[in-house]
């Protein structure tokens, strides 16, 4: 990119959740009139396809940035509502606690509710703080509602929630959104990169079929590999494995079973933990583990034996190293 010139041509590399969220956000905020936005992705490589459980901030993105209609989004992505996360068997087998979104109690006189709760607990109150948190109570009775904005004094605290959704449906939904606003999409596998001789900035991407794609600003959404940020620029990686040793996952969807739970469940297992993410049409499951303690085959078997419904596929295996890139740009 030549300095002092406006950015005219943005290239997004990758068409997973990250790529299409970026494309949607940029086409909405910057727009495609004065600036061209192109997304390159390779079907052959595919996407991770897991990220299905979210945090309440997703609402800000969907509503405030993109202006999505929440009901439409829920319909399009087979989403369900999430009030928090149940941590089962983490402290010890048979014990579980709930991490709710939203506030616990009310701060009084500038003092955090936590301190009042501690005093109450020390005076003989129970350890369960659920009665001071609407989300926990609702999750326990499998209920959900949105905050009502009725005039007059508040009778209930605001309700904080997020979603479980089908990651590939979400990407596809945002793809339609972004393409409607003018984002163009190129299918192809990036094989190499041309850099500006003076400053090392990327000037174009070269695809397997020989096509070159020029741009003046590149956003790397290529997932774990980081084909630009790592393979071109060697950003480096802070490895967090010594704190978070899990490095594999076996993931499999199963049929829905029982009542729909408005929360994610995370159950501690012998060599890691298992997620349970209920969607409208299925339940997503995965066993996240450390290969030092259990083999991939064994983990997949364990996972299959611990599903609430019939498995809908063969377990998919994923590999990763927890950590963060040293530089993001």
């Amino acid at each position, binding site marked *: 990119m030549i300095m002092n010139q*406006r*950015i005219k041509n943005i290239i997004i590399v990758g068409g997973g959740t990250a790529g299409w969220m970026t494309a949607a956000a940029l086409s909405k*905020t*910057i*727009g495609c009139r*004065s600036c061209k936005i192109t997304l390159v992705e390779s079907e052959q490589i595919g996407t991770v396809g897991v990220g299905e459980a979210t945090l309440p901030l997703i609402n800000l993105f969907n509503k405030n940035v993109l202006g999505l209609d929440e009901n439409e989004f829920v319909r399009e992505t087979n989403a369900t509502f999430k009030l928090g996360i149940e941590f089962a068997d983490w402290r010890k087998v048979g014990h579980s606690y709930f991490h709710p979104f939203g506030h616990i109690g009310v701060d009084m006189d*500038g003092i955090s509710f936590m301190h009042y709760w501690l005093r109450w607990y020390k005076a003989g109150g129970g350890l369960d703080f659920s009665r001071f948190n609407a989300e926990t109570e609702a999750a326990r009775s499998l209920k959900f509602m949105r905050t009502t904005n009725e005039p007059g004094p508040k009778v209930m605290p605001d309700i904080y929630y997020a979603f479980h959704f089908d990651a590939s449906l979400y990407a596809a939904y945002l793809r339609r959104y972004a393409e409607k606003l003018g984002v163009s999409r190129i299918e192809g596998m990036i094989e190499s990169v041309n850099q500006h001789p003076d400053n090392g900035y990327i000037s174009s991407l070269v695809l397997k079929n020989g096509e070159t794609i020029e741009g003046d600003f590149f956003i790397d959404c290529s997932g774990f590999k980081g084909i630009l940020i790592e393979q071109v620029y060697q950003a480096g990686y802070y490895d967090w494995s010594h704190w978070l040793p899990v490095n594999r996952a076996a993931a499999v969807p199963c049929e829905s079973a029982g009542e729909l739970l408005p929360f994610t469940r995370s159950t501690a297992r012998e060599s890691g933990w298992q997620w349970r993410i209920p969607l409208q049409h299925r339940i997503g499951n995965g066993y996240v583990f450390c290969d030092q303690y259990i083999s991939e085959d064994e983990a997949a078997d364990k996972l299959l034996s611990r599903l609430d419904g019939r498995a809908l596929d063969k377990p998919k295996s994923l590999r990763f190293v927890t950590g963060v890139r040293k530089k993001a740009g």
Partner: protein
Amino acid sequence: MDKPIKKVAVVGRDADAWLAALILRLSFLKAENPIEIVLIELPSKLHPHEFYSVLPSHQVLHKVMGLRESVVFKTAGQCSLGQRFFNWSGESTSFFHGYDTHGVPVNNIEFLHYWVKARKHMQLELPLEDFSFVVEAAKQGKFPSLSDSAAQVSNATYGYHLNALPYISAIAKEAIGLGVVHKIGELKSLDQIDGNISCLHLSDGSQVQADLYIDASGEDAILISQLEAADNFESWGQWLPCDKKITASLPPLSPMPGFAQIVAFQQGWIGYFPLLNRTALTAIYSSEYATAEQIINKVNKVSKASLKAESVVQSTIKTGARKKSWIGNCVAIGESAASIEPLDATQLHILHLSMLFLRRLFPNSGDLKLEADLYNEKMQSHLTNIRDFLVAHYKLNQRHGEPLWDAQRNMQIPQSLEEKISLFSSRGMVAMCEDETFLEENWASILIGHGIMPETYDPLVEKVSRPDQVKHFQKILQYIAAEVAAMPSMQSHIEINTESSKSSIFS
């Protein structure tokens, strides 16, 4: 030593000591196990000329203390909607730092960016401050109360100019009335055990023992200076060179402005702080470049006054801060934690921060190490940001050919400030740090005010067409004019809030 705090000794004088004693007393007044608050009052240094210029945050302090605003007016204090800076970029230049945001954002992009574009490419001549409710209110002598809709887009607020002696007397009366144990005395010596104070010996031969000791003795820092390492006090003299202060009183102005005026001159600056019964004046200067006599002459010339050496109060400023203001069982608060010239009305704000964190971290056992570490970290982080805000005024001055100002313009500044200034110069963005006292709008006010015009602005500004932007600007100006027209005058606000027959200053 694993017992809860039962007794706190505050050792000090004037604002720091009385406000701290009252706040601590109130904090534990209704507690099941009340804590005894003893104030050992050192001889006051307050002179009738003295005043405090305080930030809007002082309103919060009043709320914490349950004080009505009338305490300010009954003691002849006045509201301050901001500060008008004169001559910082050369003679006859001025800008207003009002306590407010500017304009109304469009498409989630700050108004500032549209203003930069308009100034650079659309022939706009209006200064940024013209797009602020509070500045317009200040110029028209209004009290900045906003309608509900204006309150959605503006942060208009105000601080105070407090008349030190009567204000502190009122606070002291309440503190004693609420059961603060008051002892007048002077410290002779103190005993220590393992880096903790174990006993205070006063000059009348009496002793005071407490579980926690609050050093509110101002720059003398008579308690903590006996516990700290030699390099604990960090001087900021290289960035903030003024080391002398002259305080005096002039007759009240008519009409009385609801803001301060800060006028730069060759060896420092002169501030005018309107109070209901007088105008408090302070001259802050560097002894390296001028004598007190020269400054008094200068003040007389600038303010058409005839002050004499006997009719002013002279004092020194030891600008800087303690790296640790909580050591062992001793917490230095207010001016004994940091001493900063009154250029940005931060004087009592240091005390405010001290009390905020002390209250939040008030110990519940004898081992104070964790609390002290966090307290020191937070205080230092806040103080560093305040320091940078003040240093920016000196660094960005455009008074060429005057040794003090030339030196400060060419000085090397802390990296944190360097980064702020260069990002703002390049794209009109304020890089906010954690623990800032001054918000984005305050930074923008002074950076723009001192003459930085960002090279570029947020490119998303281009989404709004020029004619639409002009319309938007006109609408904002009309909106501000209509709002300000509907505001009560400062005069009537003060009258309504002083009249009340209730003599208590508590709400």
